[in-house]
């Protein structure tokens, strides 16, 4: 009774669905050929995304093709959309993060994924998270800026950890005595938190602590 082999050629089905414009017989033939070619590109792109082990931009995907066979960026975009649609029913999703597209397991399965790995996912200390938040929201900042905001000294190992995880990098140096490093976040930081730009970070909450006599209330900045 094992799962019946369903050989429904899913992709081709979708292909027909996509051709919308009416076309004469010959035109039709051309479109089909063109389309078959696209389908092959699409399959290659899908293979690339799974094999790459890092997020891939359209440009990077294009480069994988030999120069004379390179699909246009637009075609790659379309292929990505088609692939994403193909996986809509599957436990994976094609996700765009800061440094490109990658396949990942849908969040709803995290419960089982956590059991898959013996090591617990890393937990980050409040000190590290606050430091990271300051760098993310206030960049570029120096270590001194971070200490001013937190009111305590920042341990080097926190900065070191952030640099090593490649969430933070040195953007330059501030032209003041000592030339302290100016820190900012990286694309890998965005990738890790599954977002494409800093704008997608949660909005800062502003808590009212004002000098006039309004009672305390929280609100959005």
């Amino acid at each position, binding site marked *: 009774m094992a799962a019946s082999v369903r050989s429904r050629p899913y992709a081709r089905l979708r292909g027909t669905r996509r051709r919308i414009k009416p076309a004469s017989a010959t035109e039709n033939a051309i479109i089909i050929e063109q389309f078959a070619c696209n389908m092959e590109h699409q399959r290659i792109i899908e293979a690339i995304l*799974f*094999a790459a*082990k890092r997020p891939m931009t359209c440009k990077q995907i294009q480069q994988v093709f030999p120069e004379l066979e390179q699909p246009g960026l637009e075609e790659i975009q379309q292929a990505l959309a088609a692939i994403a649609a193909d996986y809509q029913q599957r436990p*994976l999703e094609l*996700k765009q993060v800061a440094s490109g597209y*990658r*396949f*990942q*397991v849908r*969040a709803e399965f*995290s419960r089982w*994924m*956590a059991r898959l790995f013996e090591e617990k*996912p*890393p937990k*980050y200390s*409040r*000190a590290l*998270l*606050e430091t*990271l*938040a*300051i760098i*993310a*929201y206030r960049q570029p900042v120096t270590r001194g800026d971070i200490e*001013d*905001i*937190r*009111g*305590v*000294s920042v341990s*080097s190992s926190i900065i070191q950890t952030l640099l090593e995880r490649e969430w933070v990098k040195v953007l330059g140096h501030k032209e003041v005595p000592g030339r302290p490093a100016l820190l900012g976040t990286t694309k890998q930081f965005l*990738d*890790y*938190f*599954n*977002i494409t730009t800093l704008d997608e*970070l*949660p909005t*800062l*909450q*502003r*808590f009212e*602590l*004002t*000098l*006039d*006599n*309004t*009672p*305390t209330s929280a609100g959005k*900045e």
Partner: protein
Amino acid sequence: MENTIEQPLATVNGAPFNLLPEDLYIPPDALEVFLELFEGPLDLLLYLIRRQNLDIVNIPIAEITRQYIDYIELMGLLNIELAAEYLVMAAVLAEIKSRMLLPRRSDDEEEDDDPRATLIRRLQDYEIIKQAADDLDLLPRMEREHFTADVDTSALAIVQALPDIQLKELILAFQDVLKRVDQTSHHQITKEALSVRERMATILAQLEGENSLLFPQLFIRKEGRPGVVVSFLAILELSKERLIDIIQPEPFAPIRISAARAAEAYC
């Protein structure tokens, strides 16, 4: 820790200290753990203000100062290592308090004459970040909610080019490590004759898989006297670090060297 926070609390400056500060709605047992949860003086101060839902404008600075100082006294009582930052904040509060007590001169036009203004701004900035850190922690992230989906490519017989390193990079990396060590810790990284270290490694490698080797086997004759000295130093160093055992079963028997064995050798 001798100070269980039960009835007879300690004495502070000679005066008996029988009560926990008022408004301290924390079970005493939890207090120690609790105090260590604060990220710093701003965090503690914010907690004191927020817990009472105080409008910071109207906070009786005197009251907050008193509570704050009670807290840090308690930290002292509990032998919690008190960072200097807490004491600085106590001083700031005391200063604000004293300035508030002085009559305000009407000719003082400075806008931020109110000494609380700076403190309020810092507290606000800190609270925003504190919340942002919590929010950040809640964002779904890799390794916790999301996992990348990779497939195997090893079957495809692709030789992936391996990264290259220049010797220069390696040395610069080591230099950086040394620099950092100088700045941040008490580690003594002394330069040692490299050859002894290397010989230590060579000897360990030689011993690997061997039951034991005769002492003379560890010397390479053609290296001459300097080589012998290096090997000998390496053997002594290895022995000091308990990486090898030097065995002489009976007087005048040949000396044998073996890789250090687990406990059985010693018990």
